[in-house]
């Protein structure tokens, strides 16, 4: 019997994020393959009543911790975060649960916590993985490096590993519904001190109601082929029609046309949505690195020799100003049927 697995389930507005279900699905798989038990841990208020949603993924045990200290000073109604207190809570629970593997989603939060928890629990880190395997009882991982220009197989020298998995890559799969037991851990047993709150989130500013490019299942991206920043309304309309996030190439971000948060590529975000539509993007190496693992890539560009066509599943050579509106209309037509 191996050491236990602890899966950290992240919440938004008091409910588990989809990425949390991806994490518990992977935790259940690893537990089965390494003959170990897994427990889900979550931090927040009133999470006990969310337990049933985890039970559908085969979770038999959930622990929750409420850090009420974080309610003070934070004006955001949403998620309240302080790095040190979160990493201490997760690490202390992991130690008391005889944990070997701690698994989180590679979200902003998960990536911020992974290194911290690893130092506290003397673990290795497999960060932002796109593949996990058990080989002779040992876990190895695949992680993209150079923004996806290479995929690296890594192993751990230690039995303790903190793993974060890239959102949208692993599928959340429901299994036979389990009988779930829940437990609330008293925060006072975890020895948090004032210094654990020296850094804290006091507010969260939502930049727009739109879907973030890093989390989106569909993305429509625009590049310099759009010619003017105003022409991005074409990209936004197409994106809105199919419920996609908007992305951008580095060229248009550096030119100040689009915010950096939309940039896809090596100094932007690495994405792997089901559908990626690249409009007026030629496909510089650093851009391709960030999106080539998308499941279906559509390229629209006037230059038939543009590198983007080499990795596209589908493409149209032609004028983006004619094709994008036509594509938007056609999508509207088929989606209304």
């Amino acid at each position: 019997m191996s050491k236990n697995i602890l899966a950290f389930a992240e919440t938004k507005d008091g409910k588990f994020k989809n990425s949390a279900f991806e994490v518990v699905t992977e935790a259940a798989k690893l537990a089965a393959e390494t003959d170990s038990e897994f427990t889900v841990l979550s931090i927040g208020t009133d999470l006990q009543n969310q337990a049933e949603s985890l039970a559908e993924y085969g979770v038999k045990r959930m622990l929750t911790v409420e850090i009420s200290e974080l309610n003070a000073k934070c004006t955001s109604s949403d998620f309240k975060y302080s790095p040190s207190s979160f990493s201490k809570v997760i690490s202390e629970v992991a130690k008391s649960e005889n944990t070997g593997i701690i698994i989180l989603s590679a979200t902003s939060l998960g990536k911020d916590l992974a290194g911290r928890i690893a130092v506290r629990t003397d673990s290795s880190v497999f960060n932002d993985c796109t593949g996990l395997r058990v080989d002779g009882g040992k876990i190895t991982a695949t992680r993209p490096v150079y923004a996806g220009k290479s995929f690296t197989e890594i192993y751990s020298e230690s039995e303790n590993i903190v793993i974060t998995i890239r959102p949208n890559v692993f599928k959340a799969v429901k299994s036979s519904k389990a009988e779930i037991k829940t437990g609330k851990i008293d925060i006072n047993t975890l020895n948090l001190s004032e210094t654990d709150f020296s850094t804290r989130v006091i507010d969260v500013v939502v930049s727009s109601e739109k879907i973030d490019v890093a989390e989106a299942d569909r993305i429509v991206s625009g590049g310099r082929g759009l010619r003017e920043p105003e022409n991005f309304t074409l990209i936004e309309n197409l994106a809105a029609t199919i419920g996609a996030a908007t992305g951008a190439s580095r060229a248009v971000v550096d030119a100040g046309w689009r915010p950096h948060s939309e940039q896809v590529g090596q100094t932007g975000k690495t994405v792997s949505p089901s559908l990626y539509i690249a409009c007026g993007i030629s496909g510089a190496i650093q851009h391709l690195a960030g999106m080539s693992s998308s499941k279906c890539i559509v390229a629209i560009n006037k230059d038939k020799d543009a590198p983007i066509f080499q990795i596209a599943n589908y493409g149209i050579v032609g004028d983006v100003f004619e094709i994008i509106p036509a594509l938007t209309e056609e999508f509207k037509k088929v989606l209304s049927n």
Partner: protein
Amino acid sequence: MKIFVCVSLVPDSTTKVKISDSKKSIDENGVSFVLNPYDEFAVEEALKIREKNGGEIVSISFGTDRSKEALKKSFQMGVDKGVLIKSASNDFDSFTVARNISDYIKTQNPDLVLFGKQSIDFDGLLIPSMVSEMLEIPAISVVVKLDIIDGKVTAEREIEGGKEIVESKLPVIIGAQKGLNEPRYPNLKSIMAAKSKPIEEIPASYSGIKVGIKEMNLPPAKASGKIFTNGKDDVKELVKLLREEAKVI
């Protein structure tokens, strides 16, 4: 203020990656190395803070002799002096780097330690937060705005779909994200001045690794796609394929 900036040398983002024969690293033939782009934002922020508050900026790099290039690039931007923590080999991971940087900084009483939020080679994003735990100094990473007033730190940290406003106090560790500032270009004067800036070399305090590389591979090759050439007349067919063949709509 006593400011440290941690810098590294990485393959330029235009690099077409090839894997070496050992399959454990990239083939470095023809690869040009640059200061990690995110470190440029960290250096620039350090310079702006020094302009306002005075003080000294020391850049630190962990690696082999080649890493001196990263220190020299930071000198050209305006950093005062550098420390090379010398690794005996290229075989190290995020933990090795974090341990060595922490061991050095803990003797230095820093006010501020800046990093690029990640290097663009191994994309770990781990080192600022690991150093934070090792030194028990708070860290805020993926920072796009930073204000320091009377020892009080307010930062904006980029998250999915928005920003967190984070409060902390000095000393603090910051991981710089693109958008924090516009890094300056070195001018002739600063390039000349950089030549006389000192680099102190110290041996690595720790050389173990926790995560090893089994094998590096290129992404699987993509089968060639269906590319149409009749412009908007092909839109109908494209949507049909997305629906019926790719099943993504």
